């Protein structure tokens, strides 16, 4: 993924709101990247652009080699379906379907063959949900639901998984588990993970931390090697938590 001078404005009444003011960013395959920054700094907006949910107002944005601004609505939907995975803050699963059906549904949309049921089962097992596959969503805890959401996002083996504050509704323990699982998936399948967060415990798992302030990249740092429990300097955590 490659962004150059990406700008996004919204018309809010007669006013123009600048959500992004020229973002330059390169993300290579297999990265595990946290987007941090104060509220309103443009994290969700940037994720929506990378996720082809929206198009930039100006600048160049290539995702998997495709120029997002030039794609039609239909082409963007196709790109999302085939190559991108999403995890949302509030789990956003289909409540009338079971855990497995939620995962299977996305595979069905993709046009996967008859092995989709087995594949859904396998992915859920990978996320430690083997025993809960036939449960309805409302019979699952928040942490379990978010793991199903991750299963749904990765089932089709997308190149990039985007997660907007995936742990915001989870307690510390569940957040830890989720981050471990996401790291695991990335290590095993080489998917790229880009997630936004306010949570210092989550940031601690990131391999690369990009800080947005006022719609610009204010800081871009790597946490050195890739131990899963890198301890960040206190200053960073403070800045992020603010």
């Amino acid at each position: 993924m490659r962004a150059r001078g990406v700008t996004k404005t919204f018309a809010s009444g007669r006013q123009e709101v600048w959500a992004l003011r020229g973002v330059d960013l390169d993300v290579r395959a297999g990265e595990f990247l946290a987007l941090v920054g104060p509220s309103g700094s443009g994290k969700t907006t940037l994720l929506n652009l990378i996720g082809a949910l929206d198009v930039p107002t100006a600048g160049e944005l290539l995702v998997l080699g495709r120029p997002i601004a030039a794609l039609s609505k239909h082409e963007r939907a196709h790109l999302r379906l085939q190559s991108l995975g999403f995890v949302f803050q509030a789990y956003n699963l289909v409540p009338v379907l079971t855990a497995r059906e939620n995962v299977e549904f996305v595979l069905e949309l993709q046009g996967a063959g008859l092995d989709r049921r087995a594949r859904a089962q396998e992915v859920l097992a990978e996320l430690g949900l083997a025993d809960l596959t036939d449960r309805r969503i409302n019979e699952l805890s928040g942490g379990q639901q978010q793991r199903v959401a991750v299963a749904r996002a990765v089932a089709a083996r997308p190149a990039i998984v985007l997660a907007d504050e995936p742990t915001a509704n989870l307690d510390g323990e569940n957040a830890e588990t989720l981050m471990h699982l996401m790291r695991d998936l990335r290590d095993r399948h080489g998917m790229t993970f880009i997630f936004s967060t306010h949570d210092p415990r989550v940031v601690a798992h990131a391999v690369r931390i990009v800080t947005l302030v006022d719609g610009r990249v204010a800081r871009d740092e790597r946490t050195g090697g890739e131990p899963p429990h890198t301890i960040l300097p206190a200053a960073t955590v403070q800045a992020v938590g603010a």
Partner: protein
Amino acid sequence: MVSTRYAARSVGRNLRRTVLSIVGVAIGCLLALFMESLNRGRGELFARAGSASGLGHVRVVPAGWRGRRDPRLRLADWRADLAAAQAMSGVASVTARARAQVLLAVGTHVVPVELTGVQPDIEPRTFRYVQTIGRGRYLRADDGGALVAGRAIADRLSADLDDEIVATTVGPGGEIQSALFRLVGIVSTGSDDTDLAVCQVVLEDLQRLTGFAGAGEVSIVLNDYREIDRVRARLAGSVAAADEVMTLSELAPDIEGHFKQDAAMTRFVSGIILLIVLLGVASAQLAAVLERRREFAVLAALGMNGPRMVWLIVQEALMLGGGGAVLAVAAGVPLVWKLARSGLDFSRYLGGTYAFQGVLFDPVIYGDFGWWIVVYVSAVAMGATILASLYPAWYAARTDPAVALRVAQ
């Protein structure tokens, strides 16, 4: 398919709304079905009246009669036409008649009538009114000089049974011709209008009175009125070359038109009812879609495209429609069965019998019962719900994931 399971469970999600929608669809279908059954029954009523009134289901007429309806025209070869009609399959009865404009006189009372010469042994089977003889008796085959008239005619003539009546008409060369008849029977149909159309003598007497040989029509009643067009087509090839075959609708175009107009009216009312049901279902479905706005936003974000979204909603509509159809068929089959067996008696609203253009109609209309009920109800229920779902489906398909996710969060 998960998507079908998804649609089914979504329909089950708000059970109360779903049940109300299904009941609404079922009631709409049931009303439309009831009217459609009666509409189809009208054709049968018309055919029944036609077979009883002497019009016949099919009739052989002389060339040129169709336009002028001149009673003095005669068939080219009435015996050949009669034989051809009798040889036809599916024919219940066949009779020949001749007609003439005649003045009847008793003392100082004079009444103009259309006098019909008939074959007395067959006539009551094709002209049921003469079965209801009020006083006296009907004609016999060897009944030279006997006349049967409707009550309204007898009253105007102040004639009673066994009175002598003078009949006067114009012969082929313009000469005035008369004959003397004896009133042997008085027919009461219950309608003055229809009574005035009943005035009969045996065919040979009419030939003698008018000086015109032969017959003016061969009237045919079928076992099954739905065979009318088939019999007409086949008969047209076997009657005398100069003669022509007409159907009931052609013989009584005004009545046919009247029935068609009635049918169009009831279909229009059915259409309005279904439109109301459709709007109800559309609003219920739209409410369901609005409730799930966030769900659709998520699905759109995952890459579910517009057509798939539309298909999901249409599937849900099909389930509502299917439920409505099952309910409507379950309730409609016994209802229409009853309507077909016992009929709908509208004599109360008409105050007795109903005559139109000299044709007496039974005040009972029978609904039509058949397999078409299932096809009709399914088509109407599915059609209405699919139409109703189009706007909600379009609305769901239009969900912009970026906006909807933000708004909902």
